[in-house]
């Protein structure tokens, strides 16, 4: 008998879900305890530093490390000659990864300014620095491909190596033409649909390779454990994937690698790619000594990974009444030098933007992902959706402006509704969606109906702009999460998870799920960081997966554990398990038949996709209040737990469960920006920003709100100040926080966030994701507000004062 079943009607009865529970690690973090990777480095650890390429594309003719080796304190210097010739990818993705295997630890060919040329390991920083300066490299400099619009079919080919490998033909890799991946998804008769249109917005949008810019730069250390295995402690979102990367790069069995994840100082997707783990692991593998590598901010900005720069051509066709009839989107994605996340991010630019306007009669989404000699792109919150939504939402705003219609009205007229099958979303059925409500509430919050889109304030103009956003919750059919839940002596629980809390609070969220299911205080659930040797497998914290997917695994494990507790208690009490109820504190035995539940009581009211949706969908029925009848026997959880760890009849109970989802239910969000533009300087100030989020059931209101506010803050940076620039030779110019401007608190208004939760029947207690959907609205909303204020449609981010003042095409 399934005990934990949930329904929307019972959401109000949830006790732990929706609480503003303080994060479990808050006190330790706020008192400054040594919890992060670099706080935990053992003594006598070698410092590892990297020599980076000064050229965008070059072959190493010769490399002389002899002088560097003579520097006192230098333990080792490695070049491409020393590393295994086995290619791999640093993309933290499920095996077989969608990203091509195009990397070595060190390669004879360097493919961007910042690419790794040599590894130095030394006793001190100073020795390592001196050694770096003494490595003599003779480069054969080659003509690079720096302009991603010229990459496809360029005579210069970036990856020509023999042992390049692609796991799946579906990505349509054509590397000899610099194409990492390409694809097409069509719905309906596009030509016929455009023929019906009264108006077509035909514009090209461009977003940059923004930096995730988490405060803790990339870092890791490696050591050999008691069993002769390599243990890597890393600030990563994907410990299990890092295990595979390290083993692959070193060409050793995965069984010889262990990865530990302590507290992480932010990730935002950056740490969904491996970065420097392979370097310290290699040094430790070769020298047998512990080694650490701490990237500088400069390395983190210029020699790691970023958002994919994308150029998106949108054709949006509509009727004069604002009905959207046809959408055609082509995305060109700049992969940079190596292929991490290329084939997958680009998909989201269409699949997470077009479904908002699912009523369109026809749509087409096509894309190319190309190699260039710039820094590799990887994962960054939003993962392609951010880029696609900037394009599509901007086009919808331009459509409204050209038609002289209210941009909110145009949306309300065309918006996707629950129950639809999403043509550009793998034909999934949309079970939960409050997008329209998100928009209406945001309109109320900002006073939309009382405000014109543009107002003259003397030396400033004030403009309003709006945008919508969607994302997914975990990668359907690919992500997997598992948890172990153990009842311990005295009756507390240990929840082992492989999901990686990176400051987002998933340790706490998952404990809340367990506490709700087990009907106890969240304090009674113990959670800890990830260690691949002891934590259950989880693909990791990315793709907005942890709350939704690992949450489901927690529910399933809780359910199993409760079943076991009841069974064991029934045995001890000498009753039938069907007659035992667990209320969180006690196991209560009733007279036979008292607890019978009618067969038709709690069936979820949907059907459709896959069988196991039913298995993972639940309505919360645990709370059948204890029946009026008096129990015939009872034992406390503590008594039971203590018996379970005693000899004789003991049976230390652990429940294990895994979850995977056939669908990836989208959360939705609205954003409305109010900006002031200085008429004579073009300086844009965001004076107000309101947003309403549908993330399904809000599991922890504080943490959900901070996710939304934080995502909006990053989105405002992307929209206004984060301006990645390269020089003519392919060297990134914005390589420090002096030039790459993440917003300060003076750049961000008092963001206001509310929730309009739908109920996702496939999610744990109705929850969907929130981590990524929240970054997508600022760019299109602010761009539209600026357009209303100035008449200038800025289609290339960021919106600098200069562009706002003169328009982006003038003066070019």
């Amino acid at each position, binding site marked *: 008998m399934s005990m934990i079943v949930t329904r929307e009607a019972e959401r109000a009865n949830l006790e732990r879900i929706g609480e*503003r529970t*303080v*994060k479990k*690690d*808050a*006190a*330790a*973090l*706020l*008192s*400054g*305890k*040594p*919890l*992060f990777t670099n*706080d935990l480095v053992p003594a006598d650890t070698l410092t590892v530093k990297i020599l980076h390429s000064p050229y965008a594309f070059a072959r190493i003719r010769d490399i002389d490390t002899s002088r560097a080796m003579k520097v006192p304190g230098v333990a080792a210097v490695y070049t491409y000659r020393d590393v295994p010739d086995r290619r791999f990818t640093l993309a933290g993705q499920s095996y077989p990864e969608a990203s091509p295997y195009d990397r070595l630890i060190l390669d004879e060919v360097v493919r961007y300014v910042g690419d790794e040329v040599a590894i130095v390991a030394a006793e001190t920083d*100073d020795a390592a620095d*001196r050694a770096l300066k003494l490595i003599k490299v003779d480069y054969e400099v080659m003509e690079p491909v720096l302009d991603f619009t010229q990459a496809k079919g360029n005579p210069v080919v970036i990856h020509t190596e023999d042992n390049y490998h692609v796991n799946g033909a579906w990505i349509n890799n054509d590397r000899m033409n610099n194409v990492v991946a390409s694809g097409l998804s069509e719905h309906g008769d596009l030509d016929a649909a455009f023929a019906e249109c009264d108006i077509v917005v035909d514009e090209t949008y461009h977003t940059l390779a923004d930096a*995730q*810019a*988490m*405060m*803790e*730069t990339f870092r890791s250390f490696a050591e050999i454990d008691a069993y002769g295995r390599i243990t890597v402690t890393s600030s990563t979102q994907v410990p299990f994937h890092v295990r595979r990367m390290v083993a692959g790069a070193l060409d050793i069995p995965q069984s010889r690698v262990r990865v530990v994840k302590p*507290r*992480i*100082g*932010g990730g*935002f997707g950056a740490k969904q790619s491996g970065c420097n783990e392979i370097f310290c692991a290699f040094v430790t593998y070769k020298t047998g000594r512990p080694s650490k590598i701490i990237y*500088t*901010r*400069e390395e983190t900005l210029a020699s790691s990974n970023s958002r994919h720069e994308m150029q998106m051509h949108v054709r949006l066709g509509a009727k004069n009444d604002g009905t959207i009839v046809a959408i055609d989107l082509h995305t060109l994605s700049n992969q940079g030098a190596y292929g991490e996340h290329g084939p997958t991010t680009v998909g989201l630019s269409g699949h997470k933007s077009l479904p908002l306007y699912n009523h369109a009669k026809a749509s087409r989404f096509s894309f190319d992902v190309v190699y260039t000699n710039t820094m590799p792109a990887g994962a960054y919150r939003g993962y392609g959706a951010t880029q696609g939504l900037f394009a599509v939402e901007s086009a919808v705003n331009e459509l409204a402006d050209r038609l002289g219609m209210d941009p909110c009205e145009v949306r309300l007229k065309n918006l996707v509704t629950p129950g639809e099958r999403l043509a550009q979303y793998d034909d999934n059925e949309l079970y939960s969606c409050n997008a329209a409500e998100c928009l209406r509430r945001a309109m109320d919050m900002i006073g939309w109906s009382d405000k014109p889109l543009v107002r003259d304030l003397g030396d400033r103009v004030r403009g309003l702009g709006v945008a919508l956003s969607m994302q997914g919750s975990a990668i359907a059919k690919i992500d997997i999460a598992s948890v172990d839940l153990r009842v311990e002596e005295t009756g507390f629980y240990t929840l082992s998870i492989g999901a990686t809390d*990176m*400051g*987002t*609070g998933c340790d706490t969220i998952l404990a809340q799920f367990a506490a709700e299911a087990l009907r106890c205080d969240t304090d009674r659930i113990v959670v800890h960081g990830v260690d691949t040797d002891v934590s259950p497998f989880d693909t990791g914290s990315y793709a907005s997966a942890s709350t939704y997917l690992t949450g489901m695994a927690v529910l399933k494990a809780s359910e199993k554990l409760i079943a076991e507790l009841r069974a064991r208690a029934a045995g001890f009490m000498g009753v039938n398990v069907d007659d035992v109820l667990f209320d969180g504190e006690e196991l209560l035995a009733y007279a036979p038949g008292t607890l019978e539940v009618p067969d038709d009581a709690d069936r979820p009211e949907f059907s459709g996709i896959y069988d196991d949706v039913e298995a993972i969908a639940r309505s919360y029925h645990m709370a059948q209040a204890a029946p009026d009848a008096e129990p015939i026997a009872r034992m406390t959880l503590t008594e039971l737990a203590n018996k379970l760890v005693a000899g004789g009849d003991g049976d230390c109970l652990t429940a294990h469960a895994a979850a995977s989802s056939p669908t990836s239910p989208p959360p939705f969000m609205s954003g409305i920006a109010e900006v002031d533009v200085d008429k004579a300087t073009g300086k844009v100030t965001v004076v107000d920003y309101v947003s309403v989020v549908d993330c399904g059931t809000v599991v*922890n209101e*504080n*943490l959900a*709100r*901070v996710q939304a*506010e*934080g*995502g*909006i*803050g*990053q989105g*405002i940076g992307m929209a206004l100040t984060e301006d990645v620039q390269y020089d003519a030779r392919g060297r990134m110019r914005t390589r*420090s*926080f*002096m030039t790459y401007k*993440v*917003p*300060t*608190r*003076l750049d*961000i208004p*008092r*963001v206001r966030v509310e929730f309009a939760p739908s109920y996702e029947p496939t999610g744990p207690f109705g929850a969907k994701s929130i981590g990524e959907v929240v970054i997508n609205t600022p760019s299109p909303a602010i761009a539209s507000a600026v357009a209303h204020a100035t008449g200038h449609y800025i289609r290339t981010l960021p919106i600098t004062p200069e562009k706002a003042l003169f328009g982006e095409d003038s003066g070019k």
Partner: protein
Amino acid sequence: MSDKLMDISITLNGKKVAASVAPDMSLLAFVREQGCKSVKCACETTNCGLCTVWLDGRAVLSCAVPMMRANGHDVTTLEGLQAESADFARCMAEEGAEQCGFCSPGLIMNVLAMEREIRDRAAEQGVEHVMPSDEDMDSYLAGNLCRCTGYTSQRRAIRRYMASRFPSLPEGAASCGLIVGEGE
């Protein structure tokens, strides 16, 4: 390059510490070596505020202070302000405003410095200290970057904490510029 070590001694969190250091060692590197791991480095270019410590009671970026300059002075890190910071830490936790927590120690050091400076200036000028405006607090704390929160939850926590420490500004009264001088 730093061949000749030099002797220094500072008072770190109330305790005398003496050492021989390279002349170009930073205060940040030194306090971390002394076990004060709350002090973080996140930018190297004096932009982020994560390495904020107090030097003779004033908040400074420890990455930019050569150890030789700190010689003979009083240095305080969050490790030395555990009791004093507890109330503000609670306000942060109750808003979820720490998020990853990596930038929290630097922010806490500067918020407590702000509180202190308001009291000191008020005493100096012989006026009653009052709650600063939101704008003044944002301006004072602008040098503390955070990438997780978008600052709004921090503002709630800071405002709540400061309101528990200071009487609020009378309705309609102008902020008396205790934190920053009158600009423009």
